[in-house]
């Protein structure tokens, strides 16, 4: 490197550098974020307080909270999210356990497949389930072929159970990834010792592996909980009239009914729940260092 290029600029920057404190550099991206995201969010809150009749009041909130559609959507959203998260945790734990501690040839490929799986959009799962469990899909086709019945027993796709199955399928990899990372930190010597002392696999899992995995489980679980609360594509593709979640309600009110104050109220409630839980997730994952 030529020394001439180095000496000249240093003096000039020494002067300008002292003038600009480092926080100034964070202003442009924050300003950009404020214009396209924070200000729009504020507008949503503002609009939620402005009924069509004019003025500022809490009337839209009262109306929405009183409607049975909203209460049902809130209940459905919460139980679907909690159920999916529980399913993902159990399934993800079992699958990650096998990949990490009962290794088999091709296990690496399976882990890679899971990474790829994460990069696909969620609604593809529902699309696939239509072919597997749909009215004339594989499962029902097999059933009618074997038993000769007119229709198969798998009619759950348009019910909340179909959404639950799709969500568990799609979100389990999000639990497995942090778990696999945590399992790779576990000292296998511990397992060998426990096993040579006569502990059975179930006991090793309970007393050696599970404590190590708890932080990753907590982090993955709360992330999945938030993502399930916010999931839209899976529910939209199910096309079930009976399954309305909060994001679906926002979409329905805003786009289908053009009821913007109502949509904004539901949006504010949804944001409050999700951001609250996400804050909790950040605190938990920072505490446990996952």
């Amino acid at each position, binding site marked *: 490197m030529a020394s001439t290029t180095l000496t000249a600029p240093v003096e000039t920057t020494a002067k300008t550098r002292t003038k600009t404190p480092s926080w100034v550099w964070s202003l442009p991206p924050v300003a950009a974020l404020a214009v396209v995201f924070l200000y729009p969010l504020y507008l949503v809150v503002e609009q939620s307080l402005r009924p069509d009749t004019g003025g500022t009041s809490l009337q839209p909130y009262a109306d929405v909270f009183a409607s049975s559609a909203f209460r049902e959507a809130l209940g459905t959203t919460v139980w679907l999210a909690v159920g999916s998260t529980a399913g993902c945790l159990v399934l993800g734990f079992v699958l990650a356990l096998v990949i990490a501690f009962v290794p088999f040839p091709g296990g690496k490929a399976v882990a890679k497949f899971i990474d790829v799986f994460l990069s*696909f959009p969620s609604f593809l799962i529902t699309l696939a389930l239509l072919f597997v469990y749909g009215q004339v899909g594989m499962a029902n086709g097999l059933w009618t072929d074997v038993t000769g019945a007119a229709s198969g027993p798998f009619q759950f796709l348009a019910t909340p159970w179909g959404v639950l199955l799709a969500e568990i399928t799609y979100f389990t990899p999000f639990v497995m990834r942090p778990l696999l990372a945590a399992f790779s930190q576990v000292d296998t010597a511990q397992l060998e010792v426990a096993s040579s002392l006569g502990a059975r696999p179930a006991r090793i899992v309970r007393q050696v592996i599970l404590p190590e995995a708890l932080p990753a489980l907590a982090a993955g679980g709360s992330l999945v909980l938030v993502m399930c609360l916010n999931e839209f594509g899976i529910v939209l593709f199910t096309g079930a009239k009976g399954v309305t979640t909060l994001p679906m309600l926002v979409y329905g009110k805003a786009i289908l009914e053009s009821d913007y104050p109502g949509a904004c109220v539901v949006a504010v409630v949804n944001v409050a729940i999700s951001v609250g839980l996400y804050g909790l997730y950040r605190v938990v994952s920072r505490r446990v260092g996952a």
Partner: protein
Amino acid sequence: MLVHSKTGRWATWGVFFVLFLPLFALPLLVILAASFTTNWSGALPSGFTGAHYTAATSGDSLSALTTSLVTAVTASALALVVGGWAALAAASLKKTGRRLMDALFVLPVAVPSVVVGLAVLVAFSKPPMLLNGTRWIVIIAHTILVTAFAYQSVSAAIVRLDPAYEQAAASLGARPSYVLWMVKLPLLLPSLNAAAGLCFALSMGELSATMMLYPPDWMPLPVQIYAITDRGSLFTGSAIAVVLMAATLLVLLAVSRVRTKASYR
């Protein structure tokens, strides 16, 4: 090794594949199979055809593919600049400032995408920022959503960066902009690449916010898939879905190749 007996191991693997294959491998295989099928009203698809791919790569679907690609590339590039800049700026702040930046830039992950779409729709439907009906409203929404991920992965990489390199450069008299451009950014290149791939994949598959605000002449692939399957053309929808997955995978593959090259520097 957790299970020592041979039968026990086989049983465990059996359970694993009984869970794994139907849940994760089957959906993707089914979509692939359906995209080549003329008729599926039994256990197995029947009739082989490539016609769905002709439909998936022509007319509306082709323009949806280019729409998605343009949107994803633009949104990822913007997100890398804004998110990378924010992450670099946050790294030089003190603890409180950094926490604040973290909270601000991660917020779009926590806010439901549908609400991000609604907020952008509400804000950009009136002057002075009247963008409703243009492609920019879609690109802005995608950028907001993926910037959070770009920020997270770049700031995670900055934490792992060895400060000795920039200290050495600075002690030799390099000015901050030179350190940033010649030392920090090259070292961050692998993670910037990974972030670009992540942003691209997310933007390609984005449906929730897009459903809220896409104009008729700027319809990305996921919306097209929804519109077509909603009309009952499940097989064409599957073919478009395969095109979507293939495009995403190709870009991810290209990005990971660049990454391995960069990490040898």
